[in-house]
């Protein structure tokens, strides 16, 4: 009898402590206040103003050249507007090429001092002493960065379409708008990866300059070296011993797969598949696979989407994984100076 009582008491005690372990209140309390403040900071900062001017100038420049090109050819092209993004003429590269270059820079500029900046200004203890959780602060900062990025990208996107209407004098088709919208989404999440990475470094390093350098070093690594490393790794992991075609294919496939660890590759493939409807494969195409295909015939949007679905989800997943890492690191950080 007494044993039963004590056991039920113990159970009650355990339940009580289990209930007590749960933190009270929503982790998102105050998040929108953080988002509003951080976005206001981003949009009024000199740093962002410089980058925005750069991007807009780039957009106008490449656009001007591309529209000239298109006007001269007067081609009966179904996807005139998509050509606006992809047409290149010396000395200017295509707009998408420049965008792939600028977006990581903007994202890094938005994120590299987000957490350590608060520590350096000694505002972190004061802000965390307010009735909010750390979750709200970090999520708010990330969302503010992502929204700012989305705002910049959307503005440029609209600018391009607007200039296209003015200079080409034709309305864009539904397919084109759909493809361009998906391209916009991919661009935002491509930036999201670099934003999350810069935030991870801003948590790890106490000096904003170190965090910025580490972010830019990672970016350069993927732009310059990863392609070479992927080639070397593919050669050593899947060597060509007897010169069979299968060996060549296996090696090329491995190199492609390794290359896709770089967000730049994922983004480039997404861009190409979305903006050039005639692209039907991102890997190696064997002649046998091309049987019955009409060369140069555009794929419908749904088919292109199937083609880049892994890349698109990869970009989004990369953003989420890096943010989760930032989240874990930040939760464990001591706020003592």
């Amino acid at each position, binding site marked *: 009898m007494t044993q039963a009582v004590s056991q039920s008491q113990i159970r009650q005690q355990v339940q009580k402590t289990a209930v*007590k*372990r*749960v*933190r*009270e*209140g929503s982790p998102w*309390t*105050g998040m929108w*206040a*953080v988002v*509003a*403040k951080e976005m206001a*900071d981003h949009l009024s900062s000199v740093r962002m103003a410089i980058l925005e001017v750069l991007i807009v100038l780039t957009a106008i420049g490449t656009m001007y050249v591309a529209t000239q090109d298109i006007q001269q050819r007067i081609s009966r092209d179904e996807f005139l507007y998509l050509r606006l993004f992809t047409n290149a003429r010396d000395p200017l590269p295509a707009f998408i090429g420049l965008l792939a270059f600028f977006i990581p820079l903007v994202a890094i500029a938005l994120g590299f001092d987000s957490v350590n900046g608060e520590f350096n*200004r*000694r*505002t972190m*203890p*004061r*802000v*965390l*002493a*307010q*009735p*909010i*959780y750390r979750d709200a602060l970090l999520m708010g900062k990330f969302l503010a960065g992502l929204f700012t990025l989305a705002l910049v990208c959307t503005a440029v996107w609209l600018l391009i379409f607007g200039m296209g209407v003015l200079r080409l004098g034709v309305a864009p088709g539904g397919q084109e708008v759909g493809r361009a919208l998906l391209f916009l989404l991919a661009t935002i999440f491509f930036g999201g990866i670099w934003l999350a990475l810069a935030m991870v470094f801003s948590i790890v390093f106490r000096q904003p300059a170190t965090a910025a350098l580490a972010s830019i070093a990672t970016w350069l690594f993927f732009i310059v070296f990863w392609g070479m490393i992927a080639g070397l790794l593919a050669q050593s992991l899947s060597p060509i011993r007897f010169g069979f075609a299968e060996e060549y294919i296996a090696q090329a496939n491995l190199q492609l797969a390794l290359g896709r660890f770089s967000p730049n590759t994922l983004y480039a493939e997404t861009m190409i598949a979305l903006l050039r409807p005639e692209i039907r494969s991102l890997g190696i195409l064997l002649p046998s696979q091309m049987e019955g295909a009409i060369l140069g015939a555009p794929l419908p949007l749904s088919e292109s989407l199937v083609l880049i679905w892994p890349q698109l989800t990869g970009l989004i997943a990369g953003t989420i994984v890096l943010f989760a890492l930032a989240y874990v690191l930040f939760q464990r950080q*001591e*706020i*003592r*100076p």
Partner: protein
Amino acid sequence: MSAPIIQTHELTKKYGNFTAVDRLNLSVQPGEVFGLLGPNGAGKTTTILMLLGLTEPTSGSVQVLGLDPSRQPLKVKSRVGYLPDQVGFYDELTAYENLAYIARLNGIAGDQIKKRIDEALARVGLEQVARKRVSTFSRGMRQRLGVAEVLIKQPQLIIMDEPTSGLDPEASHELLDMIRSLKEEGITLLLSSHLLHQVQAVCDRVGLFSHGKMALEGAVDELAQRVLGGAYRIQISADGTQPEILKALKNVPGLAHIRAVNSRLYEMEAARDLRPEVAQAVISAGGRLYKLDVQAQSLDDIYTAFFKEVAHDASRVPIAN
């Protein structure tokens, strides 16, 4: 007696092998100003962070306003104002904008924000510079802005970490006045400092921290009694034959540590104010009294004496409440 505002039980915080706070039992009553004293690195800031739920205790328990800061941090932080050591603001924003951000984080309704901020800024005398960027502010103004920020949430308890460090004498005087007026409003305050005379000027009770432990706790007078043996240090200046005067003084009950500093100056300690008795003794010994002075014990003396004692005999068990 009403429930304590702050109550800790065997509170411990370890960073790896280093024990920052060691089995701390602290209790602060409503309406009192409590001073946490101790050298840098004694565990004051860590204790404060645990009170606010900003750091998890390794063991032990904390109750602030009857709430558990590590489980109900939002409730605790909306009722407790915290002015950190070397408070920082967003320099590129104005004083008003800085406070508006904090008000929004506190979930204060939009139509209330302006009123609260204006009141708080007027309270600390910064209403003239509300629209100026914080980057133009002096150290003292920043500290006052910090107090304004704390007042916005209309707290029941205010915790200030080293509130006067780095301030010029005038600014720290203003801050101490502010602390007094907050106390008059019935707000409980917890201060941490290593500037003893300032703490002494405003605190009802103090706790001496040493190596993560509360070594001593009590009112300033009590502590003096306990550490120095006497709370009053009487100093006289008298002409006359020294041995006779000393003999007469030694006959006064309650006097201790009587010594002649030079041919005219004498010092002694007493548990209460024995000036009339001392004067009488000097005169009866044929001395001519020129000066009769009493110094209340300063915390500095207590502090120095206490830490000297601790250093002298490290194995000594500290006198704790």
